[in-house]
């Protein structure tokens, strides 16, 4: 695990790389043509950022979620359109948690192959697996799979005779149908994936699979919350710069309280969410029993912060912020997509209410 100073260094590596290799004009190219494979392999392989947060046994730099969130926050801030979330946050971590698969995880970390996470819903609802002629096959529909159309490998959550099972399916295998969707957030492509008796390899089953899935979703919520904090910060930076420059009625619009206070409200949510994300990552790294709860709290907070920042950005920019050519909408739409992924703020508040009010208060008591 790194110190905060080392993390800040990691953060600035990501930032400098993306600012030079993939500015928002390049992100726009990705809206039409998908992410740039070369940028992706440089980011993962050359810079080694694909290895962050993965254990050394799997070619990683150490299983620190605190490090990972430093990376995903920066990816969010610059609207990275690559498959970091599905391949490295979801698939690679699930494989790692499930055990084995060191080589495949190392390949993912180096950006040589890309994987994604496939379930009937992104809370891990399983597809159906069964034995057929001595081999395992999987069937079912995953309605919105992140980077589903470009991934090489599908890491699938399936149900085999009532037991949760993590299996691998090659995207080119028979019985795999992929239908790209017109995602609102063009920086993160989606596809519907339909499996029909697709041949699969078991990675883990039963209690091990269940634990791996829970652990992965918990970490992924936090990493995605960090991304949302980055998105919110990016939108806030864009808007603040505009409010300083843009003159109306003889003064910079950022001098008007209506604008100033609105941006302060955004900033407060961004700061508070970032703090919560870092605490949640720390909780995972320290095996704190509150990690699950904190993962939901920070995902809820960051989702709302990013939506608030995206809406404020469009509004404060005025008519120019309503055009395609301006970048404000890219942030708003990324917020719209990412705030729903892995559970909305409302979904997570429902889980929190159950912890607080339905007698599962143990972890909360511990918190004091």
């Amino acid at each position, binding site marked *: 695990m790194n110190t905060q100073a080392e993390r800040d260094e990691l953060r600035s590596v990501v930032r400098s790389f993306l600012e030079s290799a993939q500015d928002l004009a390049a992100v726009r190219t990705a809206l039409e043509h998908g992410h740039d494979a070369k940028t992706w392999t440089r980011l993962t392989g050359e810079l080694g950022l694909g290895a962050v947060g993965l254990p050394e046994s799997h070619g990683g730099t150490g299983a620190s979620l605190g490090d990972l969130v430093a990376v995903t926050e920066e990816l969010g801030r610059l609207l990275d359109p690559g498959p970091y979330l599905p391949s490295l946050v979801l698939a690679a971590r699930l494989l790692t948690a499930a055990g084995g698969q060191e080589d495949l995880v190392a390949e993912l970390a180096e950006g040589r192959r890309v994987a994604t996470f496939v379930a009937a819903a992104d809370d891990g609802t399983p597809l159906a697996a069964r034995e057929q002629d001595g081999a395992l096959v999987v069937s079912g529909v995953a309605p919105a799979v992140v980077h589903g159309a470009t991934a090489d490998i599908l890491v699938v959550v399936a149900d085999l005779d009532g037991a949760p099972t993590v299996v691998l399916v090659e995207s080119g295998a028979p019985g795999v149908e992929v239908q790209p969707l017109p995602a609102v957030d063009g920086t993160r492509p989606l596809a519907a994936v339909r499996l029909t008796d697709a041949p699969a390899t078991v990675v883990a089953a039963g209690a091990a699979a269940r634990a791996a899935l829970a652990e992965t979703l918990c970490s992924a919520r936090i990493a995605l919350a960090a991304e949302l904090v980055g998105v919110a910060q990016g939108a806030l930076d864009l808007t603040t710069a505009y409010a300083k420059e843009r003159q109306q009625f*003889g003064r910079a619009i950022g001098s008007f309280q209506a604008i100033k206070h609105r941006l302060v409200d955004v900033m407060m949510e961004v700061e508070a969410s970032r703090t919560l994300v870092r605490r949640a990552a720390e909780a995972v790294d320290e095996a704190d029993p509150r990690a699950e709860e904190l993962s939901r709290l920070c995902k809820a907070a960051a989702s709302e912060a990013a939506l608030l920042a995206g809406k404020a950005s469009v509004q404060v920019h005025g008519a120019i912020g*309503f*055009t395609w050519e301006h970048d404000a909408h890219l942030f708003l739409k990324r917020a719209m997509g990412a705030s*729903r992924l892995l559970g909305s703020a409302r979904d997570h508040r429902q889980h929190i209410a159950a912890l607080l009010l339905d007698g599962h208060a143990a972890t909360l008591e511990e918190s004091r």
Partner: protein
Amino acid sequence: MMKTEAGEAFRSRVRSFLDRELGEGWPGIGALTPEERAVFRGRWREALREERLLAPTWPEEFGGGGLGLAEQAILQAELVEAGVPVLPLDTDQFAFTLIGPTLLHWGTPEQKARFLPRMLTAEDRWAQGYSEPGAGSDLFALSTRAVLDGDEWVVNGQKVWQTAAQDANWIFALVRTEPGESRGRGISMLLIPIDQPGVEVRPIRTITGEDEFCEVFFTDARTAADNIVGPRGAGSKVALTLLGFERGSASGALYAGYRIELDRLVALVRDRGLDQTDWVRDRIAQAHLRLEMLRYLGERNLAGALSGAPPGPESSIIKLYESEYHAQITELALELLGDDAVAWSGEPGVAHLGPDPLGSPSSPAAWIRQFLTSRAATIYGGSSEIQRNTLGEQVLGLPREPRPVQEAR
């Protein structure tokens, strides 16, 4: 709203007309395909024009209906409720709610005789030329200029945020004609033909991915000297006059449009089995309440206009309520759609601004588009911030912000 006998007789006439034109089982224009819709718009515009309901309050000599505000209000509400457009072409809103009334008030007899009938036939299709890059909510911070060269104005500059300018062949524009004067005082309103080499129209793509706006570039564009509306230098007064026209008459149509939308949202709630979910119920009830507020504020505004009472704060309040209502209702729609709100799936929506008309789909694609376009409603025609300043100063009598030091010197 007080119903009058004359009003109800007119309503019957409109309903008979609608029955005749639309026939049984008309589902609303929202249910048509884009191709069907284009055909229908033309046919429907012709029917309205023949019935003299396209410009209901204009004098009959110019092709108008010679009707009053009360009838216009009834007409518009009935049309929206029936799922047909009040102003079928995109350019019609500029012709019939902006430049037409302006010409009726400020135009010379020649201007009226020349331009008004051609608006009805759509031989002239109008674009609006107020905003400029960099001006924003500050309407009179503009720099497009015109100089008189013999018997023609020569115009140079740029206008932006035009909707529908692609289809227009004329533009009415605020331009600076008296360079010595500052801000509001040196501006005139000119009518400028678009089909000339000095005018270039370029589309602007919006947040929804559609080419809904335009930029219009004037490079030594020309228009006849007498294509000025009102006196030289009076352009800001001419432009502001518009705001008083037809006070309140659209409020019934506004309500009908949002009611159709809320009905669609309630149907979505039922379809998704969310009608017994507590937070959904509370939000729907709240939306209904806000919509009824909007409705009766509109009726009060219209009643005031009909009775000749001086304008109250209703118009500005309605604009703020409306834009915030629509932002909230479309946010609710996305919350109801849940994970389906991440992709533009299903049939696309119909309206450029404001709620989708009767018959429109209740798909993620349609609601996402409404969510995004509703972001603009708090910007167009004076941001919500500016509206609040205006209300605070004009209605509550609160002091204005101090001017910046630079200006005061």
